């Protein structure tokens, strides 16, 4: 099984490498620092969301509401800041968005962990509740006059400049947020009992209950954590795009889940790695941004992502089915 899992990750890595080779051959300008820094920037929001979605899959559930959480947290935070304290420093803005995200995640947690409802249907429901609430009661206008510190944050760069060859590049501090989320989640998953419990309930809920894992609390935590990550991703999206758009992000959830599934996480729970997820994100970002470079019109983007999902889940599923038939 380890071999199978690595195969999923290596498969994605191989596809990425092939993609880059073909892209470089057809367009020598593809493989430059500029493209790389563009792609990296495009991966930040998707990456944070994907790590959250991965956590849910590991715990044995599926969440489609996180994009609605992200956009709600971002927009509510922005309007609150504008109304109460426009000069609010960026770290307060970020914390507020994360808190709102965690709160909305807790609502998912109550229905899933508390009532034991099927995760897909609950999150389909909350997806429209959150979005409907946002657009009805908070607002449906795009706001481009963001709190100044939100805009300032997007201008804060780790590095920027022009290479000797004349390629412009810029790495924003938002990238550090992704790095932080990766490290935090890695520690959570591998170094804490809570993280191991998430794997355990994904592996077998009944066994987890029998050895005394508090299954409900663990599930609840997962949805709160995912909500918090979504809150962070949302506010990053807002400040990097320099616009609070209540219609953005929602619709992205399928691509995010595609990335996670491509990375080897399984719907039955218990399996998923950060490396795999990030590789999946990289592939999706490549498809979203550079499909045209390898000669596929960008109108085929959706088809490509869908086909990748089917391939990424179909191969292991088919192998598992055949292995089961062989074992008798």
């Amino acid at each position, binding site marked *: 099984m380890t071999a199978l899992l690595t195969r999923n990750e290596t498969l994605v890595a191989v596809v990425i490498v092939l993609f880059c080779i073909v892209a470089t051959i057809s367009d020598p300008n593809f493989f430059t620092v500029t493209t790389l820094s563009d792609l990296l920037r495009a991966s930040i929001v998707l990456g944070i969301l994907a790590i959250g979605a991965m956590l849910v899959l590991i715990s044995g559930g599926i969440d489609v509401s996180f994009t609605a959480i992200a956009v709600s947290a971002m927009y509510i935070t922005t309007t609150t800041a504008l109304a109460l304290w426009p000069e609010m420093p960026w770290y307060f803005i970020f914390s507020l968005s994360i808190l709102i995200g965690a709160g909305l995640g807790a609502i998912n947690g109550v229905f899933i962990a508390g009532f034991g409802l099927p995760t897909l249907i609950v999150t389909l429901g909350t997806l429209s509740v959150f979005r409907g609430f946002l657009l009805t009661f908070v607002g449906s206008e795009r706001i481009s006059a963001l709190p100044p510190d939100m805009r300032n944050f997007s201008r804060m760069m780790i590095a920027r400049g022009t290479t000797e060859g004349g390629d412009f590049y810029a790495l924003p501090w938002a990238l550090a947020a992704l790095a932080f989320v990766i490290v935090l989640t890695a520690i959570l998953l591998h170094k804490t009992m809570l993280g191991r419990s998430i794997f355990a309930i994904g592996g077998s809920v009944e066994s987890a209950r029998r050895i005394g894992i508090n299954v409900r609390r663990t599930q609840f935590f997962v949805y709160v954590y995912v909500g918090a990550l979504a809150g962070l991703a949302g506010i990053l999206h807002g400040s990097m795009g320099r616009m609070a758009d209540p219609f953005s992000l929602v619709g992205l959830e399928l691509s995010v889940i595609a990335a996670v599934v491509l990375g080897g996480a399984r719907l039955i729970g218990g399996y998923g790695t950060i490396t795999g997820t990030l590789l999946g994100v990289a592939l999706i970002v490549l498809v979203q941004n550079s499909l045209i470079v390898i000669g596929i019109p960008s109108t085929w983007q*959706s088809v490509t992502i869908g086909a990748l999902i089917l391939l990424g889940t179909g191969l292991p599923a088919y192998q598992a089915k055949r292995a089961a038939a062989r074992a008798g």
Partner: protein
Amino acid sequence: MSGSRTEAKLTQTPEFRLAIIAVVVFALMAALSPDRFLSAQNLTSMAFQFPEFAILALAMTITMMTGGIDLSVVGVSNLSAVVAATILASLAGPETAGAAAVMWLTIALLASLSVGAAAGFANGILVSRLGLPPILATLGSGLVFTGLAVAMTGGAAVMGFPAIVAVIGNSTLFFVPVPLILFGLLAVALHVLLTRTGFGLRITMYGANPLAALYAAIDLDRILLRVYVIAGMFSSVAGMIIMSRANSAKADYGSSYLLLAVLIAVLGGVNPYGGYGRVVGVVLAVLSMQFLSSGLNMLQVSNFARELIWGALLIFVMVINITDWAGLRARRAPVKSG
């Protein structure tokens, strides 16, 4: 064939609860705004509105009966509509009339149904032969179907049909809206299929316990294939109605219908874990939803608020129903899909 629930009193069935809900919602809306809600114009407009998503809900129902789900229904309906629309717009064109128009419409309808059947067949293969979890299979295929529609049209709407196309979505037959007739026919057909045929009973049995179905020498792959093909064809019928009513086809029409279809099926008492569901319940759920939706419309509630109310309703109904399903879920626990 009498089901396990026939022992329960009529008043305890989810369908009975639903009938009450439908009546209450209707009465409430009628009381809030009797002139407008009960007007012939409103009633007719409701009858034109709901069939498109109600048919998608029927497609969702049959897949949920097997413990699966079809997240690709909207993608299938748009893809089949785009194919039909392309035929009607580029091969026939707006000037075509008379027998030629009828011929092109027939060809377009057949093409649309074939697209639906082929898409459903693809879903069925993914779920049965390849063993993908239905959620991921239809999520992926839904993207592919939508994507194909985008690729065919470049994302723009296809329009310029012969006038006859409006017959499907905008005309009446003996004062009954044609979409309503189509929905009625499909609902009755599905009801008969589920309750009066061996295939329907096998669907229920498979949904109740797939492993036991295997041991009872039921051809599981064939059941799943046929279920998803039916769902695909139902979706394409919905696509035709949408196309006719909008007088155009586009890759992203009806994007809110997926949620609505799931909501109606769940509201209608269909068990998402499989093994229980009745068309009567789904029809009652459709009616409740439409009364509610139309009432909200008259109260000038925005589309966004309606989305909120639907989402909340979905979760509320799940909470109410979960007690009924707890037993079923425990039975199914050993056969995790995937």
